[in-house]
């Protein structure tokens, strides 16, 4: 489903972000991408989301290959790969329901279907009761759930999460993580980047991909 083969990424100013990283994430798999800040976790996620291209090597996501992908195919790829951020990236002027509806509208969902799908998505993340609240009226954990509902709007097969619990208290972080586990059980592959070593240690059953200084130092599945 996701495959990185000998991927290196260098930026003109900051130099090498990744060096020769290779791993595969299979359909329906769950993995942590760990490592200290600056290890290259966000770069890996951006490469899988085709926000950037490798300097060397190749990234394969479903049938899309970084060497051969056409510019016009990238939106279709991104609909298969949901993305959740540490800072949620919700639009403050919109309610929780409108934030989710925005994503559905953007991908061309027929108007008559949007309201029903928003309700289902918010129910799925346990936030049906807060549909009319604006992000400023929600807790951190609730905001992240809205962000997850939005990411699920395109019915992705893969969910990428970049430090999704970084701004949350332990209870809220645990709740969001359980939401990811539930989505994973329903068949969505999840790759969650985190630098929180304690959090990772508390879930030893989850595969761990450890990055250090741009290299893949350890893969618990290997």
């Amino acid at each position, binding site marked *: 489903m996701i495959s990185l083969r000998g991927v290196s990424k260098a930026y003109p100013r900051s130099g090498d972000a990744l060096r020769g990283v290779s791993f595969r994430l299979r359909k329906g798999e769950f993995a942590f991408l760990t490592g200290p800040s600056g290890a290259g976790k966000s770069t890996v996620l951006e490469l899988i*989301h*085709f*926000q*950037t*291209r490798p300097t060397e090597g190749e990234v394969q996501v479903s049938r899309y290959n970084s060497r051969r992908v*056409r*510019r*016009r195919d*990238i*939106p*279709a*790829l*991104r*609909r298969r790969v949901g*993305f959740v951020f540490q800072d949620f*990236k919700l*639009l403050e002027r919109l309610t929780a329901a409108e934030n989710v509806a*925005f*994503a559905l509208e*953007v*991908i*061309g969902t027929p108007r008559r279907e949007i309201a029903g799908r928003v309700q289902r998505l918010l129910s799925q993340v346990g936030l049906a009761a807060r549909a009319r609240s604006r992000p400023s009226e929600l807790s951190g954990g609730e905001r992240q759930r809205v962000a997850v509902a*939005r*990411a699920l*709007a*395109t019915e992705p097969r893969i969910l990428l999460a970049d430090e999704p619990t970084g701004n949350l208290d332990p209870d809220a972080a645990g709740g969001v993580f359980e939401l990811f586990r539930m989505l994973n059980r329903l068949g969505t592959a999840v790759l969650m980047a985190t630098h929180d070593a304690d959090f990772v240690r508390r879930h030893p059953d989850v595969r761990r991909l450890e990055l250090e200084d741009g290299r893949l130092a350890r893969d618990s599945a290997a």
Partner: protein
Amino acid sequence: MRSMREALAGFRRTPLLCALSIGATGLSLVILGLFGLVAHNIGGAIGDVERRVEVVGYLLDDAGPEQVRAARREMEALPAVESVRYVSKDEALERARRDLVEFSDIYGELRVNPLPASFHLRLREGFRTPATVSETAGMLAAYPFIEEARFGDEWVERLFALRSAATGIALALGGGFALIAVLLIVTTVRMAILARGEEIEIMQIVGAREGYIQRPFLLEGAVTGLAGGLLALGVTRLAYVVFPVRFAAIESLAWLPHLWTAAGVAAAAVLGLLAAAYSVHREVGRAYGPS
């Protein structure tokens, strides 16, 4: 439909910025419009004078009528020649008596007509250059029955130089002010994109197509250009009506042809669209990487 709704929403979100942009674009196009008005009138005046450019060939008295008819047919067939007029000796004398009243006594007492018959050649538009005029005069003078061919070489050259200078200035100023309008629209659209940066980022993340994101901004640029163009047209017309100007030998300025005004407003909209396309490509396009 959505693109239009979003473009109008863009105007509602930042009304002051949009008004300033339309105003500034309109202002730079007003200068272009006023200059176009002057250029149109100068062009018209030069064209009037140019149309009077004639190559005149004076015939020897012993030129046979058959020779003259054959030469006339040959000259009429030349691509540069618009018309050939033959003025006989009698017509020349009649004209001299009519036009040169102060010499009417002398012409009245003449027993022999001293004036020669002549050919008057007018050239087509686009062929009234010093080189073509001189070349045509040379061809005319080459006939053995032509005594002399004249065309006022000095003022033809000056006229041509004036036309070239006017065209050059019009192009430079027109290009300059059009560029200013483009830069203003580029900046406006760029600011509109930056103001909606968060929304655009989310659209890109969830998989919006490039066209879906870009169309409202392109439309906004075209509408800004169109509104600026219409504003410029209105202000130019107002200036034309309120301040009737006499320019050099032109009694009163003529208003621009409808084709010019329609083309000007359409060009403003197209410039707006192109300026927006540049901004959108720079600010939005890079999220999708190389094509």
